[in-house]
């Protein structure tokens, strides 16, 4: 029997997903025995032409991490889609947009201004900006245009499975590859992680009150955090109740609240809305005025509830009245 072929590819990511694969350690050697890695540009010397030469559907699976922001990334995603029986959105950036997706709060020109004009260390009296075409003494140089819009993988191609996390926990990576090798994958669209809330695997769960009520929310730097007690019960915004399990509650293990990098459990359309409602439900406030006042105390709701999911959200990106339509924004 021939080994199934798989590919790894990164789009707009930080490299942490690749580190997570390397973190499989000796398990990685086991994986390499079970499958044939046909394409992994960051680690092995394969070329795009090698992928193009494959038959359509010849790859058993392509694991694609990172959100999509450039036309090259889009082209590679489409190519891998054609060559693969299954595409796995690997990591929260590919799945929901991730932290770089917060760039969707701004337009390209805002970002350009911040970096090349407003930064206090910049000395740029003549207002130079990177340009698509520029003339230097020796001739002409070109750069690709800067596109600020970040898309999830399934906003670009059809995705079969999702492996959440920032980065995905190594145990889930190993299980996903094993399931693939054994032909034991669940139905299309499945998230390859337990479909329960993070609280179910949090060692602090026994200290979570049955009826949890929070009078005033605290921020992590304002309080000494008890290492045993339920973080929500301590008044911290812990997104465990709205977030999928599978990471062994790593951040609460580091004595900090869950920030939601595993995304939602199934059936949730908009993670941020779900997280906001989970937090609102424990708010101990009476009457509209008090509720309004309490909610106003939650600083930076977008960065708190949509930190990893803005591009996948119903909002997707900030749109100004003068902004071009979304398609024009998206194409870099």
């Amino acid at each position, binding site marked *: 029997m021939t080994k199934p072929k798989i590919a790894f590819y990164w789009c*707009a990511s930080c490299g942490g997903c690749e580190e997570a694969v390397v973190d499989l350690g000796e398990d990685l050697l086991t994986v390499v025995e079970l499958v044939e890695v046909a394409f992994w540009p960051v680690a092995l010397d394969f070329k795009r032409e090698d992928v193009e030469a494959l038959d359509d559907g010849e790859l058993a699976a392509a694991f694609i991490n990172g959100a999509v922001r450039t036309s090259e990334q889009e082209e590679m995603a489409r190519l891998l889609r054609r060559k693969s029986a299954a595409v796995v959105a690997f990591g929260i950036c590919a799945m929901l947009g991730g932290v*770089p997706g917060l760039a969707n709060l701004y337009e390209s020109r805002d970002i350009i201004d911040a*970096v090349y004009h407003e930064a206090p260390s910049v000395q*740029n009296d003549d207002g130079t900006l990177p340009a698509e075409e520029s003339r230097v003494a020796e001739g002409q*140089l070109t750069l*690709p245009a800067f596109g600020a819009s970040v898309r999830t993988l399934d906003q670009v191609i059809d995705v079969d499975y999702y492996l959440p996390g920032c*980065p995905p926990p190594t145990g889930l990576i190993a299980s996903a590859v094993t399931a693939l090798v054994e032909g034991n994958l669940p139905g299309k669209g499945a998230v390859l992680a337990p479909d329960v809330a993070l609280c179910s695997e949090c060692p602090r769960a026994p200290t979570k009150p049955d009826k949890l009520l929070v009078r005033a929310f605290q921020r992590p730097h304002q309080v000494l955090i008890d290492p045993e007690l339920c973080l929500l019960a301590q008044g911290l915004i812990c997104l465990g109740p709205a977030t999928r399990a599978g990471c062994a509650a790593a*951040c609460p293990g580091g004595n900090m609240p869950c920030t939601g990098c595993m995304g939602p459990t199934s059936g949730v359309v908009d993670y941020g809305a779900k997280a906001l409602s989970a937090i609102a439900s424990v708010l101990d406030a009476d009457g509209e005025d008090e509720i309004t006042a309490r909610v106003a105390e939650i600083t930076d709701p977008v960065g708190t509830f949509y930190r990893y999911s803005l591009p996948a959200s119903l909002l997707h990106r900030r749109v100004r009245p003068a902004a071009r339509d979304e398609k024009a924004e998206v194409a870099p």
Partner: protein
Amino acid sequence: MSDAIVIDPLTRLEGHGKIHIFLDTDGGVDRAYLQIPELRGFEKFAQGRRAEDMPQITSRICGVCPMAHHMAATKALDALYQVDPPPAGRKIRELLYNAFMVEDHALHFFFLGGPDFIVGPDAPRQKRNILGVVDAVGLEVGKEVIGVRKQLRDLVAAVAGKAVHPVFGLPGGVSRSLSSEVRQEAAAAAARAVDFAQFALGAFREAVLGNPGYVELISSEAYTHRTYYMGLVDGANKVTFYDGTLRVVGPEGKELLTFTGRDYLDHVAEHVEPWTYMKFCFLKDIGWTGFADGAGSGVYSVAPLARLNVADGMATPRAQEAYEEFVTTLGPKPVHYTLANHWARIVELVYAAERMAELAGDPEITDPQVRALPTALPREGVGVVEAPRGTLFHHYQTDERGLVTAANLIVATQNNAARIALSVDKAARALIRNGQVGDGLLNQVEMAFRAYDPCFGCATQSLPGHMPLIVEIRDPDGALVREIRRD
């Protein structure tokens, strides 16, 4: 009018680094440009975020060195809230920081930079990788690399929540104390790391000093630039990673200035060019005079070689020995050979491992008092660390609720950007004669910038890690002669 042998990527491939070389009429190199084609804009979308979230948000700039961003951000929060961590909090930070440095330096040495020397710069490309290194030094070493890495990363995860991305940094300390069990694990990991670093040093020494050709290559003019150097030093002017004073020395080795992170804007500035998204740092005290080395140019360098150049030595005994051998062989200081970064990295690997051992052996590190709660109103803070690839600045301003109103990030590779541009240009000039492009072009150009271990992902907050590169060679009529591509 320049002729047009061009080393150029396909322009539609915006994810790829681009080297564009203009030839003069004699077929020699007029000028080579390294272009970085992307940008992400963390500095912009940091605005509006809660300051205490910055260590976790900015670590997403780079999954290869998340701890460096996490720590620079955390130290900026100390300054923002004017709160100093208690001794145990500070020591836990430094312990994990050094564990990270060991792991990152070792990864670079065995996977990325080391193959050039252990396998050899002229070895075929298929051999110049980790498998070639394992062939040369034995399978056991390969297993040890994986084993040490795992042990160090497990330690970081045990304390910081996750190795990628850590969550333990807070203004005034860390989120949790260190148990005595974890301290024992740290001590065991440190002892193994010290042995491992000694082994790496031995392997490098054998490969390099056993081969006069390598020393000649390292000290060849093609890989030499006489620039300023910057790095953190401790009170005794020894190399330090987590905290210290910034010291700058000139091309002749004289101290130009020292400053603290808070005053960085007085001394560090960024220059913008229209042909790349990367900004180029320079010393404000000297000024930007273009892409040039020498004492009259504000171009400076950071990273291992720069750190050894600005320091008077290493604070731990084995590292000091290794440092002395380095200086004896390549000195006098400052050492201007870019490729000497590889050796300097090993000297630092030894220091980071020994420093880890010191901290893990310090009983005070298990003190339960690991945080001081901030009481001051937040306004502005700067945090500086030495990332594996050089000095890293995080600077935040906030409103009184601690919401970020402005963020400025100057990352290691940006400090090095001008010198890297010089190195690429010089490597191209050394190789291209009479319009003939040697087969080794890409390898040699890559060697020139691999020595810096550049992270263009950090530098433009765009793509991670090691930039894929396309070299496209065109004849004077613009026709494609050949393409060399590194995805």
